[in-house]
């Protein structure tokens, strides 16, 4: 599945891992993340990510 990178801090969203810190289960594609989801490292919202 497509990984996405935070354009501010470089943190990478890997759908295989999800984001347990915000209750996102492994296997969740980036597109399906809730609108209020943010980069767990720097707080950047979804629209500041780009496909890796």
């Amino acid at each position, binding site marked *: 599945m497509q990984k996405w990178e935070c354009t501010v801090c470089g943190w990478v969203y890997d759908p295989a891992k999800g984001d347990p810190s915000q209750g996102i289960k492994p296997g969740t594609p980036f597109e399906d993340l809730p609108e209020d989801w*943010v980069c767990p490292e720097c707080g950047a919202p979804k629209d500041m990510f780009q496909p890796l």
Partner: protein
Amino acid sequence: MRFVIVGGGAAGIAAAQKLRSLAPASSITLLEAETVPHYLRPGLIEVLAGKKELLGITPYSRDWFEKRGIDYRLGEAAVSLDPARREVFLSSGKAIPYDRLLLALGAEPIRPGIPGVDLPGVFTLRTAADVERIRTWAVGRERGVVLGGGWLGLEAAYALRNMLEEVFVLDRGPWPLPRQLDREGGQVLTSLLRDKGLEIVGETEASEIQGESEVREVVLSSGKRIPADLVLIAIGVRPRIGLAQDAGIATNRGIVVNDFLETSAPDIYAAGDVAEWQGRLYGIIPAAREQGLIAAQNMVEPKSARYAGTNPIQRLKVAGVDLLCLGETQPTGGSFLEEKFREEGRYLKLVLDGERRLRGAVAIGFPELMEKLELLFHEGTPVPKDFLGRL
């Protein structure tokens, strides 16, 4: 219900968003002393390096706040607080009443008490305004000295290298990132940073900064002098507790909070870098956000959410170098086994227990191994005997 948040950093913004979603009809006021809209602080390094504009790390426009009915007041600093009357006072003298208040005041850089620390050309790095001042000053300057070889000091030095001919980093410790790295890792990092134009000087402290109208040189405790026309202080931060202290709220190093992020005063909460929870000051964005969210829940419904600590996210890069530090990197005592691999510009150390489970690791220059190491570390599966041999 009138909610007031003092401080529009990571904790304050997260709290404002959460308050709005939980209490659609409430009034939310967000006071921010800085004059520019909320930006993502970790991105300031890229702005300092000239690789990004402030706008590129600014996630929300003023419209965004307006649409959500958040009264976002930039350039409004809270100067005092009256918990009995439930009012916050602004520098203009104006009083803002609240039903529940969140103190998300953040932290400010520590300046050492040495002579010359206030000379023009000596900076700290915390805000967008700091970055602007440093970038303006750096034009036409050549020699920078950064005091402090922690994450911020190294990142800032690397960014300054884009503008200056030469950058020294001074640290009290024997090598950079002494809490995270072992000696050999420190040596490898030092030489990699040297290749990038950063000179790291360990086991040293500045005893004085000299110059007449502006900074000219840094005098070390050894007596040695390093010429400098720009000095950046990055020796750490301290929570902004003054407002709470003056109002009689319990403080220690930070504003003391319980598991509900309540302070000692009724209906006043604290979150983020300013908050001290179970003796801990996290000073990291993920903790600030999490505390902001939990404080907001409790402001809407008291004692409805408990904070249980934040696991820090592993940093994977410093000053352009791939680097991972996990768990015990410098074990003392115990029956740990260390396995090392070192070659030009790369270093890997595994700290294993009797069952060959990974208890700690340092990896410099192995971006492809980081995921694997984290997995081994968290799952506790034994590390194969030929792990290093297969590199």
